[in-house]
């Protein structure tokens, strides 16, 4: 009796195939400057990190689903070999394997087309992206992958339960949340709250070195969108300090000088 009971408990209900799109961004305190006639981001001295939404929320929720249902978590990045450090970090946190599409990431459209080309015959149950990258803040890649693959897209997920067939997702919307059910494969973008950040441990870092990382050649190398030039915002004119005893003066300035109220 007890053996049967054990078997039932151990049997995987499902085996989920999960893909997590990760990107590399400048660290949040990095100095933002440009070179080549303001046409390129100046990478000198800049430290790069995995995009926080990808690392903290998308990747970790995928790992939790795998722990719950069994399955595999694959991390994917479109970028040059220099991105391998960031990909290794995803493996150290717990992804089983990784794919790097060997091309410069030119735009959301070109990145999404390459990820979709990789994913189209792989049968992923959920494809995760972060809600946006903290450098280009586009919020575009997830929806574009979904359209290429003709899958539903649920964006800004701050909570998701998945029973192996149907997912129930809380989506962040202006001033609240929307609760949706999705059946079958879909693309999800992760916002804050979807999971709790995990710090890779020594064992994870060692294991990551032996995990498979495939390099695939890009299906799409052209981009419809390009950056012509960058500019920095105009510096503020300097702060005007107001006497804390005289809030009437602040109100007057906001009304008459700044004209914002």
């Amino acid at each position, binding site marked *: 009796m007890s053996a049967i009971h054990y078997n039932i408990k151990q049997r995987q209900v499902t085996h989920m195939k999960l893909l997590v799109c990760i990107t590399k961004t400048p660290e*949040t305190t990095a100095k933002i400057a*440009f070179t080549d006639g303001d046409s390129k981001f100046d990478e000198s001295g800049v430290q790069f990190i995995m995009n926080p939404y990808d690392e903290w929320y998308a990747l970790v929720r995928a790992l939790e689903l795998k722990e719950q249902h069994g399955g595999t978590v694959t991390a994917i990045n479109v970028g040059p070999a220099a991105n391998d450090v960031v990909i290794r970090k995803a493996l150290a946190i717990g992804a089983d394997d990784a794919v790097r599409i060997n091309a410069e990431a030119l735009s959301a459209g070109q990145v999404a087309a390459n990820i979709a080309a990789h994913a189209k015959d792989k049968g992923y149950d959920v494809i995760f992206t972060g809600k946006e990258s903290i450098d280009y803040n*586009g919020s*575009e890649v997830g929806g574009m992958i979904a359209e290429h693959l003709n899958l539903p897209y649920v964006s800004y997920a701050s909570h998701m339960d998945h029973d192996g067939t149907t997912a129930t997702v809380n989506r962040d919307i202006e001033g609240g949340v929307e609760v949706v059910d999705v059946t079958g494969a879909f693309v999800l973008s992760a916002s804050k709250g979807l999971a709790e950040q995990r710090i890779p441990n020594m064992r994870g870092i060692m294991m990551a070195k032996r995990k498979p990382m495939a390099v695939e050649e890009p299906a799409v190398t052209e981009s419809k*969108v390009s950056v012509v030039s960058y500019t920095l915002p105009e510096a503020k004119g300097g702060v005007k300090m107001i006497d804390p005893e005289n*809030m009437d003066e*602040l109100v007057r300035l906001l009304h008459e000088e700044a004209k914002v109220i």
Partner: protein
Amino acid sequence: MSVLVLAESPNGQFKKAAYEAVHYGAKTAASLGGECVAVVIGPADNPADLGKYGASKVVHLADYTGGIDASSYTSIIGQVAAQVGAKVVVVNHSSTGKSIAGRVAVKMDAGVVSQVNSVPTQEDGGIVVTKPVFSGKAFAKCKVAGDKCVLSLMGNALPITEIGSACPVEAGSVDVPASSVTIKERKTVDGEVPLPEAELVVSAGRGMKGPENWGIIDDLAKTIGATTACSRPVADTGWRPHHEHVGQTGVAIRPNLYIAAGISGAIQHLAGVNSSKCIVVINKDPEAPFFKAADYGVCADLFDVVPRLTEAFKKMKAQ
């Protein structure tokens, strides 16, 4: 050629964002050539009013009840764009707009630029438009090759004015494919302007010492009709709801007035708020980095200053 604008009507009502999108669509049409057509999906009061902001016609799918599902919306917008001959599609950079901008671009085989803050222009073989990058720390001038593009418009990017009068409304006719997404519930805080649309924002941070002290922030916000926001640690510790978290990893906002009390002004916080037109910082530490990004500063204990500021606003309103 025409420019197709999605005019969102949450709960059957247009909000400022819809008028902004239409107005921007009209300016885009004037710049690139053609007319501005608005599409309204689901029930909406007075769609003809969109003409006042520059729409020459509205295509209204009044019977649509499928909720805001990205694939359904994409299918509808793709069909209407083909019917009206639109090569440019404009949406708001809202939770809805962001969910569909990329999808629609793939469907139309167009380029997409999100969070745009300028009117696009035609420049040798492409469309040029600007957007903030690096969480507001810089701007990028982007070029979309060809003549097709999808743009999501940043909130409060340009002032809206009424430039026309009511326009004709046509009933739209499209096939909406079945979706595997079911919307079960929408829970929103009623009566408050959502942060990305707010013109006035009162925000507070760890200097508040605890959630029980937020009464003075709420009073100030209520007095001027502002939306409340907070710094990340305040949301992380559950003092305030997550949707109030502004900054690089929270909501990016661009109100006319941002009042920050008890927030140090860390670079990640500034990233989400430094495009605000006017910033007031209340902090008792004269070295707080936020003062460098502020227009007006008050260096004192917020527990004294905030109630005094509320009183001063009340006095002004009474006059």
